[in-house]
Structure formats: structure tokens, C-alpha cells
């Protein structure tokens, strides 16, 4: 009985915060509204019995990535944008129509997937409790070991790249 109420409350909060994020002029408010969306998405993950993913989601996204966004916004000292998000410009009307068309396509795909019964593909061997942290860890270290190691190399490359890109000046060339 509680689950539909919780689901609809989280859905309304997520969508309202998402719309507020793309409409608001101040970039700091946009980041904070996205953090609200991320909180509600973590609530969705808990409802879907994926508790470890919810915890990692909060730590990585709201704890690290959004903080990085706030750092950069305050470093660049961005003010509010000068134009309001109204649908007066023609390009914005086009973008709105494109988004509506895309949403219709997504609904159509969901409808096709549900009604044809094509979602019961790939029943895995782990019919045990989904979202169990040891099961997830076991999967990550056996079947997905190679992507796991490559992901760590990817993070190293990203760190090196970010440091190089944001350096203030290159090293001076040696004379002679």
C-alpha cells in the first residue's frame, strides 16, 4: 500500500526538480535541483530493491560529481543568465517539439516492449535475492572483471587528462 504512494511522490519530485533544473537561470540552483532529482532517483533504486546501487549513487553523484560542479561554478564565478527560459524564440519551440516527439517515441517503445511480452529475456542464473551486495560483488569480480579493471584505467586517464587540461600554463621550454 505504501509503495504506490512513495513511487508517485518520488516521481513527482524527480520530474518537478528536473523541469526546474532546466528552467532556472542561476546555475547553482540548477545544481541543487539536480541533487534533489538524484535523491529521488536513489529512492527509486531502493524501491527496486537495489540498495547498494542506491548507496553508491548517492556517494558518487550527489557526493562527488555535484560538488565538483559547484566548485567549477564558483571558480568561474558565473552569474545568472540574462535570458529567461520562455518559449519565445523559435529554436526553443523546436527543441520543445523535439523533446515531445522523443518522449512519444520512448512511450511507444515501452508500450511495445510491455505488450509483446518481450521483457522476459535473459533470465539469469541469479534468481536469488536481487540487489544482494555479496552477489553483486561476486558478479563484478568474476564475470565483469575485465570491464572493472578497464574502468580503473579509465579513471586514471581521466584524472591525468583533467589535470593537464586545467593547468594554468605549460612548462617553459628548456633553452638550447
Amino acid at each position, binding site marked *: 500500500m505504501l509503495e504506490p504512494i512513495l513511487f508517485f511522490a518520488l516521481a513527482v519530485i524527480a520530474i518537478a526538480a528536473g523541469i526546474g533544473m532546466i528552467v532556472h537561470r542561476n546555475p547553482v540552483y540548477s545544481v541543487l535541483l539536480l541533487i534533489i532529482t538524484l535523491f529521488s532517483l536513489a529512492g527509486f533504486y531502493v524501491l527496486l530493491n537495489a540498495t547498494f546501487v542506491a548507496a553508491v549513487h548517492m556517494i558518487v553523484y550527489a557526493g562527488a560529481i555535484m560538488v565538483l560542479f559547484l566548485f567549477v561554478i564558483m571558480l568561474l564565478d558565473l552569474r545568472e543568465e540574462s535570458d529567461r*527560459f520562455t518559449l519565445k524564440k523559435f529554436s526553443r519551440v523546436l527543441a520543445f517539439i523535439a*523533446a515531445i516527439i*522523443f518522449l512519444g517515441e520512448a512511450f511507444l517503445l515501452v508500450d511495445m516492449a510491455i505488450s509483446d511480452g518481450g521483457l522476459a529475456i535473459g533470465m539469469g542464473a541469479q534468481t536469488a535475492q*536481487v540487489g544482494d551486495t555479496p552477489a553483486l560483488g561476486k558478479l*563484478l569480480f568474476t564475470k565483469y572483471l575485465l570491464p572493472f579493471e578497464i574502468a580503473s584505467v579509465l579513471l586514471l586517464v581521466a584524472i591525468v*587528462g583533467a589535470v593537464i587540461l586545467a593547468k594554468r600554463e605549460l612548462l617553459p621550454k628548456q633553452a638550447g
Partner: protein
Amino acid sequence: MSIEYYLIVAAILFSIGVLGVLTRRNAIIIFLCIELMLNAVNLTFVALSNHVQNLDGQVFVFFVMIVAAAEVAVGLALIVAIFRQKETVYVDEINLMKW
């Protein structure tokens, strides 16, 4: 709660992200909308993983989060570097390659 509700919410969030990417001028806000799109895809993965009772979807959510973190680090460093050169973050003013 049946699965189509989660998929519909994810589709709506993705469309909101698309609308934001197409409409805003600020590069950092565009980045935020890309993050919203990635999160909508994460929600789709977790919902489907719950539906077919397979943990592979949640493992893929891990990797999507890792890639998103790496992309945000490099992308924000790029924006900072561009800001140092041109003193602007608005994408319609960064048009040196426009012919």
C-alpha cells in the same frame, strides 16, 4: 509497482534532459542535463534488472556511473580551460570554428 511506470518516469526524465541540452546556452547547464540523461538511463537499467531478476543491469549501472564521473572530470576541466581563453561559458559565443 509494475515496471512500465519506472520506464515511463525514466523516459520523461530523459526527455527533460534532451530539452535542456537543446535549449540552454550555458555549457555547465548542458553538462548537468547530460548527467540527468545518464541518470534516466541508470533508472531504466535498474528497473529492468529488477524485472528480469538479473544482476547484470546493476553492474552496468556501476560502469555507467564510473564513465559519468570520468566524463564530468574531463569535461569540466575542458570548460575551465575554455573559460580561461575566451572568458565565456556560453556555447553560442564559442564559435571560432564556425565558417
